[in-house]
């Protein structure tokens, strides 16, 4: 491991910790409006899912457009647990178990979907993940689940067809989702989980397995000839990526009281929004994903005052960021005016 990698890793952690402390100070001193306070947890979960997606897109090199679907799995399974255990378990163990359940189920879905999907390449893979993401969302939209004295009732049609006792408790109410999930998530937990996701992904990249995953990305045929088990590493990277999206899902569902599988949050638009964070933050650049998620999630919210113009400004910012990152002229400009960064890089080599 080179010094550069160690430094990079701690810069990312430091950045998150500093942002957390700043926000806490602003909150404690009462400077922060309640509107912005409400955005802090979403910022964290979008940063988490962007980090997870970057593992899939940037490190494994496979474009997935279904990560909102994995987030949906994590959100629903964990919310279902927390909701049904609301009166049984105290907050802390309940949330920890819910977290494990959400992560385990999204990892399981990632694994199962990965089996057929990872046989495909490029555009085809992207289209199929997009389809799976939509399927997950739509299935959760039509699930009815209830509990009464006779046990669990399940239907995909409507409430009446469950044949439940009127005294029973409805757990999942179709398109109306799960109402009354305890709000166990808060900013501190969200920031901690963001750090944990960063820890997992960055450490994985800087290990034997991470190198194998990146080798497959750079040249699959050469990786095979070096004795690397392609299927194993593709599946593990995809599964871990889905599991991290699951962490984001758990935070999502425990931050709001009513969870519904709407396309706004779990549809392909959401998947593409997450992909935008990854691409503009820099594909394969984990810290970039966190920064892009923070800036691009907060920006439209902070521009609410400009009403009609806010999406206009948002799209201009997207274009500017894209140009700044990738256009040859902008790179030249960066090299000229941020030459000190480059010198440091050369010195390392």
């Amino acid at each position, binding site marked *: *491991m*080179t010094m*550069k990698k160690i430094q990079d890793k701690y810069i990312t952690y430091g950045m998150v910790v500093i942002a957390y402390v700043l926000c806490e100070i602003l909150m404690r001193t009462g400077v922060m409006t309640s509107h912005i306070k409400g955005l802090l947890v979403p910022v964290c979960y979008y940063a988490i899912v962007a980090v997870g997606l970057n593992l899939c897109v940037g490190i494994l090199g496979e474009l997935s457009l279904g990560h909102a679907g994995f987030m949906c799995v994590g959100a629903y399974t964990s919310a279902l647990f927390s909701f049904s255990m609301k009166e049984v378990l105290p907050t802390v163990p309940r949330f920890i178990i819910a977290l494990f359940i959400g992560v385990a189920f999204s990892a399981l879905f990632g694994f199962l979907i990965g089996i057929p999907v990872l046989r495909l390449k490029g555009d085809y893979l992207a289209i199929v993940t997009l389809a799976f993401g939509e399927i997950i969302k739509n299935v959760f939209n039509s699930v009815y689940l209830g509990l009464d004295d006779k046990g669990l009732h399940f239907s995909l049609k409507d409430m009446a067809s469950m044949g439940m006792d009127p005294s029973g408790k409805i757990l999942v109410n179709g398109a109306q989702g799960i109402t009354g999930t305890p709000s166990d998530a808060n900013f501190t937990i969200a920031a901690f989980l963001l750090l944990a996701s960063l820890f*997992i992904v960055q*450490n*994985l990249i800087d*290990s*034997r*397995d*991470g*190198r*194998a995953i*990146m*080798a497959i*990305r*750079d*040249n699959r*045929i*050469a*990786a*095979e*000839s*070096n*004795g*690397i*088990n*392609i299927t194993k590493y593709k599946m*593990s990277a995809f599964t871990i990526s889905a599991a991290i999206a699951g962490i984001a899902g758990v935070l999502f569902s425990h931050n709001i009281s009513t969870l519904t599988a709407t396309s706004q949050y779990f549809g392909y638009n959401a998947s593409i929004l997450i992909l935008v964070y990854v691409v503009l933050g820099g594909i*394969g650049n984990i810290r970039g994903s966190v920064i892009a998620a923070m800036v691009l999630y907060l920006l439209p919210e902070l521009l609410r005052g400009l009403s009609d113009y806010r999406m206009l400004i948002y799209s201009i910012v997207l274009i500017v960021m894209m140009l700044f990152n990738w256009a040859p002229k902008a790179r030249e400009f960066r090299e000229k005016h941020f030459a000190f960064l480059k010198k440091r890089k050369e010195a*390392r*080599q």
Partner: protein
Amino acid sequence: MATILDAQKLSISFGGLRAVDDFSIKIEKGELYGLIGPNGAGKTTVFNLLTGVYKPNEGRIILDEKDITRLDPVHKNKAGIARTFQNIRLYSKLSVIDNVKVGLHNQFHYSMIDGIFHTPAYKKVEKEITDRARELLSVFKMEQHADVLASNLPYGEQRKLEIARAMATEPKLLLLDEPAAGMNPNETKELMDTISFIREKFGMTILLIEHDMKLVSGICEKLTVLNFGRMLAEGETKEVLSNPEVIKAYLGDD
């Protein structure tokens, strides 16, 4: 001397085309064996058969007394065959040292959990991997490039790195697919030195495909000539190169 590779009567067809027909080769330990032939003769197809990219329709491949005919590339590599490619295939976005570390993948082990939590086991093994990779790089006189991106290396160094990466898998047999392709005479000379050096240093058995006759006649002890998928001649380098059939295949009828 012990036989390292014994391929018997390999054949493969793609549709109606018999790309390799009845190909046999026997390589003794420590030998440097050349496989030559005009363009499209099926040399690279032979490599792809030996490394498991294609499965032969007929024939057997015995490596160090084990039948490896049906193994896939991953297991062929684990069995002891490493290769380089005609068009260089490096991990372009990884550093030079990481390329070698990928080659060392199956030589050092720790679990993925160790890797994610950077446990003491990770630290210990990772240090061993780094030391071994640096050692290999210094053998190939590339330690000064260790942290450079593989894609930023000059062409000749990229070829060398590919060989270093193949050597990292600790093979019994090294296959080099046109290692001198696109090199200038100086680079070719350096490459010949490198190949002779790894033979001496590691006692490596090498099979190489080459067009550069100077390189072939300079370092190979034995040759097999392929033409239209069939073996035209085999034997000691000098004999083969003076064989009129071979001259005809290379230079045409006159």
